[in-house]
Structures are given as C-alpha cells and as structure tokens.
C-alpha cells in the first residue's frame, strides 16, 4: 500500500493502490450512486428475511413471507386442474365412440391422453406408439383384441394377461415344442408363411387344421375374442421371418399389460384410449 497523495497532473487523490508503480486515482462516485448502493444493501437484507435465503444444515431459512417455488407450482397445477374440471367431468360422462373429432372435448382428451401415454405407455409402446417387438404398434389398423373405442378402453382398463385384474383379457397359446415333432413345426411354419399367398397343402395344412385353427380360425383371420392374431395380414407382432415364427410356435408367447384402471384415474384411462384410437388405426 502506497501513500495516498494528491496527483498533480489531474488534481485528484490516489487510492493508495499501487501495482508496479502504477497508481489508481480515486474518482468519487456521484452521491446518488452511493445511495443506490446503500439501498441495494438494505434491499438485500430485507430480501433474505422475506424470502428463503440462508442455507442451514438441512434446508434453509423459510423467509417470513412463506414463499416457495414448489408451493407456487402446486398452486399452478391446482389452478389448471380447476380450469379443466368441467372438461374432465364431461370426459368421464361422455359416450366416447360418439365423440366428434375436432371438438373441444376430443382435442382435450387427445392432449391429456398424449401426456398420459408418454408417462405411462411409452416405455413399452414407444413415445409415438410405434411399438416394438412384442409390443404392438398402435398406429396401424391391426388389433389383437379389437380397435373400437370400447375395446381399447377395456384393454387399457383391465390390461392383458395380468394377475391383478380378474377381468383382464386372457388367452394362452400352448408351447407346441412339447406337443409336435420338429418336422411338424417346420411344416406348419412354412404353411403360415405361405398364408398371405393362399397357403399350402400337405403336412403343414394338417398340423394347422388340428392344432391352430381353433384359435386362429379356419381362414387364419384370427379371433379378437381370444386375442389370436390374424396370420394372413402384413403385421407381425414378434416378426414374420421363419426363425421368429418357429420360435413362437415352439415356445409360445405371453405378452402382458398392466390393468391401468387400477393405477390411473377414470379420465386418464379414457383420454389415453381416445389418444390411442386417434393414432390412425382406430375402428
């Protein structure tokens, strides 16, 4: 620290700070500026008393105004829910199949359903309902258990092959590896693969007739009562190549979906069903 002195060239005092002989002039602030500093200090003190500020060992001082961002979010959500209450009531009471596309209620159901879908369904069905191996693509027009609004609501509410809901959709394909000879399986797979082009005669047809037709039907068009897929269409849940079909016939498949009626509110079940129905495949 150097001496504070009067700088002759400028007529101003120095601050006493010296760096390698370079000194700093003390240029005083305007008075109002100084007062602004004092006011901001005062403001800061008041602020830390009024609002949450000082960190403590667990948590922080709450502030005398009792403000918290979390409470604000909660109030926001509550306000939104209050605003939507009328629509929600309407949705719960609505006759869903009669819902007109483009109506306010329909748009609300889709918007709400889209959020529910992303939070609850996208883990298996994908964020845009494109599905994956074993998880149906909900954008297409192939439906295992039916694609009408009522069918979709039922599937969502009760789920599929779960132990928690007595009304869950249920069916079980046998593992034919324990019942058929390998060459019989090979033949029936070849038969199934040829179905789109009319099928084949011989062993495959016989094995199909004896073992598969009771569920998948004489015409192989499937049976929605039992969730038996249509084997003639272009949609394959697990894959339509020889290896995959062989595996399906040998070991069977057992896709499970939870009963969302037990986990979601009625309006959420309904809105997510409307959303799924709107994806381009609803019947």
């Amino acid at each position, binding site marked *: 620290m150097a*001496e504070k002195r009067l700088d002759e060239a400028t007529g101003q005092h120095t601050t006493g700070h010296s760096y390698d002989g370079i000194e700093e002039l003390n240029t005083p*602030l*305007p008075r*109002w500026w100084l007062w602004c500093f004092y006011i901001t200090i005062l403001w800061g003190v008041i602020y830390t008393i009024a609002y949450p500020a000082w960190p403590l060992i667990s948590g922080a001082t709450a502030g005398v105004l009792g403000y918290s961002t979390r409470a604000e979010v909660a109030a926001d959500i509550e306000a939104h829910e209050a605003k939507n209450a009328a629509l929600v009531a309407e949705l719960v009471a609505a006759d869903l199949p009669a819902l007109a596309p483009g109506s306010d209620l329909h748009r609300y159901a889709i918007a709400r359903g889209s959020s529910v879908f992303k939070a609850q369904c996208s883990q298996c069905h*994908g964020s845009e309902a494109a599905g994956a191996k074993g998880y149906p693509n909900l954008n297409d027009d192939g439906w295992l258990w039916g694609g009408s609004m009522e069918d979709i609501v039922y599937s969502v509410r009760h789920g599929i092959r779960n132990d928690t809901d007595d009304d869950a959709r249920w069916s079980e394909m046998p593992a034919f590896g324990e019942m058929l000879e390998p060459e019989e399986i090979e033949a029936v797979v070849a038969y199934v693969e040829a179905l789109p082009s009319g099928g084949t005669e011989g062993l495959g047809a016989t094995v199909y007739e004896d073992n598969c037709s009771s569920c998948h039907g004489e015409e192989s068009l499937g049976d929605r009562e039992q969730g038996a897929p249509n084997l003639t269409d*272009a949609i394959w849940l697990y894959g339509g190549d020889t290896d995959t079909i062989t595996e399906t016939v040998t070991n069977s498949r057992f896709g499970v979906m939870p009963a969302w009626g037990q986990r979601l509110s009625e309006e959420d079940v309904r809105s997510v069903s409307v959303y799924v129905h709107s994806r381009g*495949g609803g019947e």
Partner: protein
Amino acid sequence: MSDTSQPLYAAREPVFPRRVKGTFRTLKWWIMIVTLAIYYLTPWIRWDRGPNLPDQAVLVDLAGRRFYFFWIEIWPHEFYFVAGLLIMAGFGLFLFTSALGRVWCGYACPQTVWTDLYILVERWIEGDRNARVRLWKERWSFRKARLRLTKWTIWLLIGLATGGAWVFYFADAPTLLRDLVTLNAAAVAYSTIFILTATTFIFGGFMREQICVYMCPWPRIQAAMMDNDTLTVAYREWRGEPRGKHRKKEGAEKLGDCIDCMACVNVCPVGIDIRKGQQLECITCALCIDACDDIMAKIGKPRGLIDYLALSDEPLERAGQKGKPTWKHVFRTRTVLYTVLWALFGLAMVFALFIRPEIDMTVSPVRNPTFVTLSDGSIRNTYDIRLKNKHGEDRLFELAAHGHPAYDIGLEGVGGQLVNVPSNETRLVRVYVTVPADTAPAGADRTDLRFWVTDIANNERADQNTTFNGKGN
C-alpha cells in the same frame, strides 16, 4: 486515513442552461416536435385489416405474438425482420457517429429530447438561468414552493403522458385508455405507466446529464467510432486565444476573438466549458455554437469560433489555411461503406418482405415411426402440416400430395383434404399419405413427395417438398 482522504461521493453540480436562439436550437426544436409527435401519436393511427384483426397501425400484440406495422404483419417465426431492423439501426448509428460524432446524443436521444422539454418547462415556470440560480439559492418560501410544485406537477404530467403512450403500443389504444381511466386495465399496464412516469420524471427533471455521464455506455462506445475526420463540436482555440474582455484597453489587438463572455458555458446542458477541448460529457448538442455565433455577430466578428470541426483540419487552420470542405469529411470510405451495408440490409429486408408467401405452410414428416405397415400391407406415412392464415377472414385450404399417382392423402380423424383455418390463426393438421403394398413408393427407400395447398376461394397456391418413406428405409 491520511489528510488526503476524500469523501466517497461527489455531489452533483447543478446546471442551469440559459436560453439560446440560433440555427441549431431551431433544428433541435423541430426534431423535438417531430420525435415527440411520432412517439405520442403513433398508437392512435388506425389501419383497417379486416374484421378479425386489430385496426391499430402500430401494435405489439404480446399475448397474440404478432407485430403489426401498417400493412406489414410479423409473426414470431419472422423475427429476423426485427433482427434486421436492429442491424440497420446499428449501421445507421455507426454511419452517423463516424460522420457527425455524437449526433444521436445531441439531437435524437430520448434522454436529450425529454430533458430539453423539461428544461423548457422549467424556464417557463421559473425564468431563465439567472432567475433559476437565484431561486435555487433562496431559502424555502411560499413563492419557491409554489414554483417548484407547479414545475413538478407539469413534469409529472409529461411523465405520465410518456408512460401512458408506451403502453398504448401494446394494446388497442382507445380501449386501453377507457380501461385505464375506469380503472379496469391490467395491473401490468398501471405498473408500466408508473415505472415510466417515475423514470421520465427523475431522469428528465433531476438526473439529466448524470444519465449520460455515469449510466450510459453509449458515449464510451461512440468514442471508439470517431476518427480525425469526424465532425464534432469544438472551439477554434487558435482563433479565440488569448481570450480577454477589455477590448478598448491597450494591448487588446493581441487578444483573440474570445471575449470570455461565458455564453457557451451558460447554455451548456451538461455544464462543461467547450473551450477546454473535447470532453466525455459533451453530447454535441451544438447550443454553444448558437450562443457563440450570437455573440460574434454582436461584436462584429465572423461566426464559427465554436463550430462543427474535424480534428484533421486543426493543423491546416493553425497554419492559416482553409480546412477541407465539409462534404470531404463526411464522404469517405468508412461512411460510404456503412451506407452501403445499411442499404444492403434494407434492400434485403424489403425484398424478403415482398417475396413472403401469402400462404404459409410448413411440413414436418413424422419420423417416429418412419412408416406404418397396415394389415393389407400398404404403407402409410404421417406428416404434420402447419397452415397459417394471416388474413382477416377464415380461409378454406385444399391439401394434395403429388409425386406419385399412388399417393392417397387423408386428414387424421376426419379424412378428406379440406382444412379450414380461422382468421389470424395457425392450424396444425396431421395428414396420412398411404400407398398400396405393390407400388414403387411402398418398396422403395425414399420417394419424392410434394404437398400442394390451394386456397379454395382464390386458387392461390403454395407447395412444399418432402419425402415418402417405404419399406426399403
């Protein structure tokens, strides 16, 4: 602490600018009238846009996210127009600063214009410089209180009009005025008016030059843009010095033209002495030029002892030669370059404005999933199409998919190809394009697809290219 310690602050030296008449003062009055008239009156200009759009010529509709400027309507996605205007404003300031120094500060800056107006009111109520200095030194009396209160009231009313005019740019002015008067307007309108009234009152009435000297970054930035050819207000020291009052005394013939009358100092709104050379505080308002010219005329000397001068002329004038003509100072590579850049941006924006499509369509292909196989094997792609209707009436659009005869187009949920877009709205529609299993686009990786959108009423058309994803994808 040693005896050389100083206080932490410097009290403001009050400035009492004297009244002045002259060329630049007249110019400044006109600029003040025009700029204030533009500011106060613009929100009241009406402009018919059709039944569903606001009829205010200049309106920043924050809630609706629109900016209306006479026949131009800017949507948020066209914000680059605002960026372009800012760039043009930037180049404009570069141009003016390199040619004429702090001409913005001296003539057009709101701080200068409103301070000028406040000083006018002050002079009107309290008298000219000498009367104001006397009043300032006087002890408080009924007269002083009356004058001060009158002045502050008028200042407050001007501040109120300033804050009031600001909010009219953001809502329909007649409606908002009615709401404001009947106490029905939004709280944000009142708080904005309050803040702007307070800042106008304080900045124009009390802070004045302190804003420019201590708070505004612009003087510092401008200093970097000036050079030796920049015209700025300066004192011809070589002509004026040595200054002296007593013209009839012996030895007066040796004196310069400056008679040390202090006219230039007394009229200065920032309280400096221009004869000390260029100073940070100087806003180049040119009032000292007017004041000095007036004195020079009275004592029979040529005008221009204080004048717009370029530094590069100083050596010439000291040597007794004439400086370069003004146009040579102004017209030089830098200023030409700035003008060209400014004009290029302006032309580009005008061009962009004119080629803006009347129908605004954006197409985003839905890529999750890239395509959907339907049970009959046909392939379906999904597209999100946004249609904007900037007109005052509802419009009915027809969508069509071109590029392959097999493309079959349908709107999600409702089917068909017709979309009604309400006035001044954007409508998002989800569109399916489907092709049968045995067609080329179904098997290919990608096939070109072009969406056509046609306004049914007038057959105006726009198109957008995208692709169709097949199984090969």
